[in-house]
């Protein structure tokens, strides 16, 4: 004969075993961010710098094309349909302390898409006009895409160093 204690414990376990599963549901939650950088009015936004990379002394003319990964990229924002006057000022040389490396800047622009392969050459120095196309309900509407590139001439006697310069782009609308 089982004791009352054992009977009750058996009853309790029986109730436990007959209970519905405790884990009827499992759940989890995670968040992500939504981000947007709003630019209003006429704006020029630098996407990347011009970078010729590592260039050996004595390599002569090193050309960086608009389609190269090292080309500088800028986005010009403004009102659609109205012309934007752009001027690009580039130094004649990159410098590393007192040392100089001849630089010839070049540029090209695509008025309708961020596609350097379809960009048209534009002058460096004299101003020129671009027209920003309203690209409709797509990402980055009302933008002109500007690519900066060029050529450096590296002689055999150029001292080793990091050579830099600044290209200035101005826009009016």
């Amino acid at each position, binding site marked *: 004969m089982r004791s*009352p204690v054992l009977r009750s414990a058996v009853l*309790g376990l029986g109730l436990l075993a007959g209970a519905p599963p405790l884990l009827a*549901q*499992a759940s989890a*939650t995670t968040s992500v961010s939504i*981000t*947007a950088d709003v*630019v209003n009015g006429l704006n020029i936004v630098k996407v990347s710098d011009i970078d010729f990379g590592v260039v050996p002394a004595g390599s002569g003319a090193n050309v960086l094309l608009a389609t190269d990964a090292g080309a500088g990229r800028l986005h010009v924002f403004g009102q659609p349909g109205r012309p934007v006057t752009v001027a690009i000022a580039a130094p004649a040389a990159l410098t590393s302390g007192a040392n100089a490396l001849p630089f010839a800047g070049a540029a090209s622009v695509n008025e309708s898409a961020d596609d350097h392969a379809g960009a048209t050459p534009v002058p460096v120095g004299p101003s020129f006009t671009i027209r920003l196309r309203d690209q409709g309900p797509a990402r980055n*509407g009302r933008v002109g895409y500007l690519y900066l590139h060029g050529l450096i001439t590296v002689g055999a006697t150029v001292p080793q160093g990091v050579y830099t310069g600044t290209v200035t782009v101005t826009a009016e609308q």
Partner: protein
Amino acid sequence: MPRSYAPASPTVRAAVRGALAALLSLALLAHARPLDAQGEGQGDPNHSSVTVSRLGDLVFGLVVGGASVVVRPDDPAAAHFEVRVRGGPSHVVTLTIALPAALLSGPDRLPVRFDANSAAWATSDAPDARTAFDPARGTTVTLDQRGPKSLLVWIGGTLEPMQAQPSGDYSALIALSAVEN
């Protein structure tokens, strides 16, 4: 005045012991290890876990005042989640999404809109395997019982900046909840 205590009868003692034993059983039940939603339960139908992982944010990038910007769920800029279910008898997962009405930059608001096709789910990365749904309404997914109990979720949206929208870095949060039913 002296008190007298009469011993309880065997029947009463047994009843008390039985009640104590039942309470002990209930106490053990109450103190059992909580079944953790994040715990391991692979292959055990009585232990289930759901995890939601963030694979990417919804990034609208550079936006100009007055120009609506749309990110579709198949755009690389769409928010991207992975939901994994382990264990449990069910293959039905309910997705609920908390969406903002606007992005904020300090006191400035940038309205964001979600439509019936702003979100999609799939059990693989294949673009043609995706099923669109309205993120505001959420959805319920029945997973293939023979396949992995996981799915991918993408969420896009539409920004509607005003013509005079103040410049700035705007942000907000989307929260995806997954429940195994």
